[in-house]
């Protein structure tokens, strides 16, 4: 479990070899694109390296005398050189065009696949796992990390490859042109490499910090934007501003340091480059180079130092991508806690018999929330769960649809262990109306059908009428097509609950779960609800949690919970006769009514 936690937060190290293999998994399907791009890069680099040689030819064909430059070669040769130059340039740029199109497209296909994979994976995580991850950090992973990983294939690796090839190619040609000068220039290369190495070390640390702070900031923003109402009500804007300021400053200061590092590194490399040029001129004249060779060296040095300078950058990006991939793979590696068994039983119809057999359950190790809970609910019964807050009522209901896995005991549906039932068919058969109704942005219709187009307006209207939601919907100008704002902000709690009723009933469940759903509805609406619940009861087995005893008096069975244990079971009348806990609750409520 601890290991899984480490993975969830993305801090677990993945060995380099394993990492390469996994990245390969995404690259291999695109190998054709990559191979072709590689080929084009070779051509492109080749062309790039040859260009200065043409210049050399050209310069050497001009002899300089005291009076005027005399052109020693024929016009046709000069024309040939000019066109050769032009053709090579066009070719080289065309290669760049195709290469980047091919690579970018392959890269986008990879990110697309990755994002899909990560999202699907998150969807399948259990509630328990989901609760441990701040939403902000999940968003960062799906949105940013996937991109930075695919950057690796499309930009970074390609540029790195191009640079390395260029450096090697250029050096070989310089060596052929003058091995003496090339050996002297080696000293400058060494200086650049050492500088780059130091620079890289500094910047890697800074980049890691930067990523950490960005993710922190996203998490902070996500939570505090959701809680803005509370912040304003409690007048805590100043404090939150200060908290944000701390994070903002951290990020800015890190960025400053990154800028600083680059601001020192780049000019330094340029300085080395200029020194190398100076040496080249000096040595060139000493060794009696032709003007063409000096010009060629001048060109090659530029082509040489540019990639050297960029390599440090690219190695950084590779590290950034590697740590992003690590966090992504870590997330993908967390096995969903709740999974289908290899050959799950697909049930397309449930009678609705539910049995808890000595069920023990804890959210956190050894903190038992349910202790040895046993009960049987017969098909089509209506059962009410009663107990103080925190007794475990919601927990019991969420176990039936396997939002969490139990540690000990067994839960049976129609005599089958729910662990053997295909989760999809299980959840399809159970309709849940929960304590906090969640509405999606979209229309009322979408919120009721959940984007299932098989339902006609007639059916939807019928269901709305059935649960008494039609009254308020009909009053809206746009009826079913009224927009729902984020989290349903533009509807009252009571209305939200009515919508969730409609949603549940429309999907024709065989087992219904109702958690506190009547709590926020005014007395009048509650009467309407009660009326429709009487009807819904006949759909199948129904489990209700309610604090108001009046709502549950008619239940076939009442299960009384206290601190995670079943303390009483029976009908309203039999429990009253027992004169136990339920009796006490009843008297308390009775006094109020």
């Amino acid at each position, binding site marked *: 479990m601890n290991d899984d936690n480490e993975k969830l937060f993305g801090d677990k190290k993945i060995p380099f070899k394993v990492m390469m293999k996994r990245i390969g998994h995404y690259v291999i399907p695109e190998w054709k694109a990559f191979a072709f791009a590689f080929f084009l890069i070779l051509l492109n680099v080749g062309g790039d390296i040859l260009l200065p040689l043409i210049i050399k030819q050209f310069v050497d064909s001009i002899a300089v005398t005291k009076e005027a430059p005399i052109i020693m070669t024929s016009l046709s040769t000069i024309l040939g050189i000019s066109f050769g130059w032009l053709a090579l340039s066009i070719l080289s740029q065309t290669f760049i065009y195709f290469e980047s199109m091919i690579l970018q497209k392959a890269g986008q296909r990879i990110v697309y696949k990755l994002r899909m994979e990560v999202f699907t994976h998150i969807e399948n995580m259990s509630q328990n796992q989901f609760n441990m991850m701040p*939403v902000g950090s999940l968003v960062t992973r799906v949105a940013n990390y996937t991109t930075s990983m695919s950057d690796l294939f499309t930009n970074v690796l390609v540029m790195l490859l191009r640079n390395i090839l260029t450096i090697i190619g250029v050096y070989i040609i310089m060596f052929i042109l003058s091995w003496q000068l090339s050996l002297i220039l080696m000293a400058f290369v060494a200086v650049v490499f050492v500088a780059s190495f130091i620079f890289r070390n500094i910047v890697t640390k800074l980049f890691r910090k930067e990523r950490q702070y960005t993710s922190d900031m996203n998490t902070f923003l996500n939570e505090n934007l959701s809680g803005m109402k509370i912040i304003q*009500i409690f007048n*805590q804007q100043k404090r939150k501003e200060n908290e944000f300021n701390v994070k903002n400053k951290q990020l800015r200061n890190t960025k400053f340091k990154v800028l600083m590092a680059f601001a020192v590194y780049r000019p330094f490399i340029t300085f080395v480059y200029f020194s190398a040029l100076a040496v080249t001129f000096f040595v060139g004249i000493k060794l009696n180079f032709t003007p063409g060779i000096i010009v060629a060296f001048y060109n090659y040095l530029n082509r040489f130092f540019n990639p050297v300078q960029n390599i440090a950058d690219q190695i950084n990006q590779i590290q950034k991508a590697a740590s992003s991939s690590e966090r992504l793979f870590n997330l993908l590696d967390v096995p969903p806690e709740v999974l289908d068994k290899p050959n799950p039983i697909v049930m397309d119809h449930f009678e609705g018999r539910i049995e808890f057999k000595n069920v023990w359950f804890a959210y956190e190790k050894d903190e038992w929330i349910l202790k040895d809970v046993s009960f049987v609910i017969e098909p089509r019964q209506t059962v009410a769960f009663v*107990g103080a*807050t925190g007794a475990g009522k919601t927990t019991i209901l969420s176990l039936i649809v396997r939002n969490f896995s139990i540690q000990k005991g067994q839960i049976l549906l129609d005599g089958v262990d729910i662990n053997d039932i295909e989760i999809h068919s299980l959840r399809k058969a159970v309709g849940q109306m929960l304590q906090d109704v969640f509405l999606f942005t979209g229309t009322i219709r979408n919120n009721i059908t959940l984007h299932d187009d098989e339902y006609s307006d007639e059916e939807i209207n019928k269901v709305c009428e059935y649960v008494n939601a039609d009254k308020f919907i009909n009053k809206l100008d746009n009826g079913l097509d009224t927009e729902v704002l984020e989290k349903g902000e533009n509807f009252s709690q009571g209305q939200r609950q009515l919508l969730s009723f409609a949603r549940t009933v429309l999907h024709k469940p065989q087992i219904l779960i109702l958690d506190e759903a009547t709590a*926020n509805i005014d007395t009048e609406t*509650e009467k309407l609800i009660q009326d429709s619940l009487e009807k819904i009861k006949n759909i199948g087995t129904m489990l209700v949690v309610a*604090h108001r005893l009046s709502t549950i008096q008619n239940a076939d069975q009442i299960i009384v919970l206290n601190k995670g244990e079943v303390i009483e079971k029976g009908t309203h009348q039999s429990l009253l006769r027992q004169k136990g806990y339920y009796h006490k609750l009843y008297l308390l409520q009775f006094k*109020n009514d």
Partner: protein
Amino acid sequence: MNQVLYLSNIDSLRDHIAYVPQDNFLFSDSIEHNINFGLESGTEETARMGAIFAGVDDDVRGFNKGYQTVSGERGVTLSGGQKQRISIARAYVKNAPILILDDSVSAVDTKTEETILHNITNERKGKTTLVVASRIQQFHS
């Protein structure tokens, strides 16, 4: 009242009102910090005072880490009623002249509801408390 509204800007108006909204948003922070949210400097003591008022002290002390339990984003690790009462505690601790409860005891069982309403009558003497309720029965006490 008109005059007060006229004189005060929104901030100082908000300073005088503590409000328990219908949906109980909690920060992913310790229960202590959540309850002390409206205070400049709060302690576990002040948090407990609020919790006792809202009838959630027993629950919190039952948790392994007590008041240092971190409630998870949006308070996911608490039961509906616990969340609601922590939100009541948060408003109470602010000790504002006006306390508004918007249907805030709906997820709480009868016994706890009783305690809270009882506490409101006792401990907020001389201060205004507004209770918005969907059920008439709440007004009887």
